[in-house]
């Protein structure tokens, strides 16, 4: 009988159906992506061009940097609703410490570029730490804690620019946000680097394993002696720092720093992570999923601009397609779990 079980277990890997089922969470967003590409290519000749591919990559870059950090958070079954707000605040902090033109009427504190960047990063780290302390030490659910942080970030932004628009930022950031490295836009390169490093950390480091385990079963992680609070604190800070970088590069990308500049990124980054197939309940998914989600979102946003439809209808269509992608995802996950 023992031999029976052993050989049966050996066979377990076999079967195309089972293989497909077990990978459905990855395949579902891939199919969605291919489907969208096909539809947009047929509907708009301007969509499937190399030029436009470059556009899509540039358009998703800021979301990608935010989504990298957010993937960590969601894998631990927490959430960060303050991502866009922190990005905005940090971008504005950067501008605040940079000498602005005289016509920009902001009482700012000019610093050398490197110092300004350092201050901005420290601001991101500090905001992340506040999130971390609130969630782990005080014990506020991350949903509520980061909702409060969303307001705090918006408040910092408002206070520092007072309804004005700032334009000047340090050169290194301008280069990373709107320059190019060889033929590649540098913001795309930075985004790819973030995704790559995020993936390596999640897959090959001890910390990455803890992130998955804490998300997979928090109580079991705790009983195994994993410092769960430290892991959660770390992901909240990682998320905030990613947002900070995204915020700084975003200011360079858009050429200005102002209030509410990043508002769309909250929904986009959460959608990218979740549409890609990372479970909101934690423990399943990862950066490859996030990349798929980013592409789905990028193609969707970009493609809708290429086809000729009522621009007031676009938002609704976008929402419906995202809903559809999520529905497919949920069913794929269910099938996967049933493939046991």
């Amino acid at each position: 009988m023992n031999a029976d079980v052993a050989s049966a277990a050996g066979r377990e890997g076999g079967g195309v159906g089972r293989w497909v089922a077990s990978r459905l969470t990855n395949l579902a967003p891939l199919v969605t992506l291919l489907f969208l590409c096909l539809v947009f290519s047929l509907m708009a000749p301007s969509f499937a061009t190399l030029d436009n591919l470059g556009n899509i990559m540039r358009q998703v870059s800021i979301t990608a940097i935010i989504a990298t950090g957010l993937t960590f958070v969601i894998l631990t079954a927490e959430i960060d609703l303050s991502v866009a707000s922190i990005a905005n605040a940090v971008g504005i902090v950067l501008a605040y410490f940079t000498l602005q033109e005289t016509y920009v009427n902001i009482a700012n504190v000019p610093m050398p570029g490197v110092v300004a960047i350092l201050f901005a990063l420290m601001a991101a780290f500090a905001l992340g730490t506040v999130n971390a302390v609130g969630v782990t030490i005080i014990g506020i659910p991350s949903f509520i804690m980061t909702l409060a942080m969303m307001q705090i970030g918006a408040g910092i932004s408002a206070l520092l620019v007072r309804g004005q628009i700032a334009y000047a930022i340090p050169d290194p950031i301008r280069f990373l946000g709107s320059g190019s490295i060889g033929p590649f836009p540098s913001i795309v390169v930075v985004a790819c680097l973030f995704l790559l490093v995020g993936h390596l950390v999640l897959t090959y480091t001890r910390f990455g394993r803890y992130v998955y385990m804490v998300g997979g079963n928090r109580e079991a992680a705790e009983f195994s002696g994993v410092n769960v609070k430290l892991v959660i604190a770390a992901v909240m800070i990682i998320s905030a720092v990613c947002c900070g970088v995204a915020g700084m590069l975003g200011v360079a990308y858009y050429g200005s720093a102002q209030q509410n500049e990043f508002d769309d990124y909250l929904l986009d980054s959460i959608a990218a992570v979740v549409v890609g197939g990372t479970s909101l309940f934690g423990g399943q998914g990862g950066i490859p999923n996030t990349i798929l989600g980013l592409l789905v979102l990028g193609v969707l946003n970009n493609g809708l601009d290429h086809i000729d439809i009522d621009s007031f209808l676009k938002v609704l269509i976008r929402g419906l397609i995202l809903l559809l992608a999520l529905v497919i995802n949920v069913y794929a996950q269910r099938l996967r779990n049933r493939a046991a």
Partner: protein
Amino acid sequence: MSEGKETPILEMVGIGKRFGGVTALTGIDFDLRRGEVHGLVGENGAGKSTLMKIIAGVHHGYDGEMRIDGQAVNFRSARDALAAGIGMVHQELSIVPQLSVAENVFLGVQPTNGLGVVSWGRMKREAREHLQLLGIDIDPTRETGTLPIGMQQLIEIGRVLFSGARIVILDEPTSALSPPEVKHLFEVLGRLKAKGTTFVFISHFLEDILEVSDRVTVFRNSRKVATVDAASVDKAWVIEQMIGAGHHELADAMLGEIRLESPKDAPVMFSARGLSRPRSFTDVSFDVKAGEVVGLYGFMGSGQTELARALMGKARLHGGTVSMGGQEIRLRSTADAKKAGIALVPESRRAMLFGHEPVYKNISISILERISRLLLKPGEERRIAQGHVDALRIRPFSVEPEVRKLSGGNQQKVALARWLTHLPRLLVLSEPTKGMDVGAKDDVVKIVKGLKEKGVAVVVASAEPETVLTMADRILVMRKGQIAQEFAERGVSKDQLLAAA
């Protein structure tokens, strides 16, 4: 077995079931007579639960045929089965602790008036009446979570019993119950049996099975071994059928008197002084020597479970001090406890395993910091895990399957294996053999013995007297959160333990 005079209420012919590549059942013929209590026994993973889940509509897609009252049926869901009068009480409680007792009794089937509004008055009245039949007299508006576990289990059983089911499957219904509660339950079964309800009773407590069943079916390795009249066999025979070989230590613990003996000259490894936690335990003091196994025995809710959690830093201590190897330590978190050399295997599988992760990740989680600083070493993890899988006879013999696909007893071994690579100084086992079959229990006993020899201090907290009797060198009996009596350096029997608790 059946004489064929009366159509069995349920009949199964040639049932087979596979999960992926793993065979769970082969060629099972099984039948239930109207108004009998049918006991099912077998090692973990032998197929009892799988067969019952087919009957209850949880599993579909099996070979063979199932007939109810002579009619072939094919359930697509538990709802189908319920409609056909089949109810099942699962091993894991499915009580909603936040809801009232009455709401739990009527979960999903609340009585409503003509407008579809829940009629609370009727619900409370009927819930109270139903539970009184089970010998429980409580306020049906009480929050269920505030009741003792045994009571909650009876409420869950009550829910199925009074849903009008003609066939009721009870999977390990007595594991959380105290002896008087078990007696109650058996009385109720007898009464309902007389009215024509048919019961299937799965348990590892063979005395319970033999006492309450009319017939007993034994499973081994996905097959049915025998169905016999319960009155015609004894416990020894059943054990032999289940495992096919003698396991003497276990049999001793179940029957005779055990001689307790602690290691003589070993130094004290762990000591606790005046430990208190409101509503859980008060002023608990004890020492554990290196290489000694201390049993903490008490009925469910006597405080031993909470004490075990507190030792791991999972429940905060409100008073008292603990020291390890003579040094005082603080237990603010599980990470603190682990650093001090304390390990806990908790009582609930859900609380200790990562279901979606492979076996090896479940084993390596507690030693990651020892085998890797920054980067993981999956090869090393697999090698270590494979060693434990072989040594503990974890089935299947692979480190790759997701843990949720393993049977209960094997899952428990995985959780234990986690602490066997780098030995802790104090190992706390909470209900280490709960729901385990004889063979797996024996494996655990051997593991604990091995740890003793290596000088690990072990605490075994359990509400099963057999568990502490088989493992412990010294037994502390807990009652209402305090240590009521100590048994050391003497003979002790199950009766004496029960009397002290």
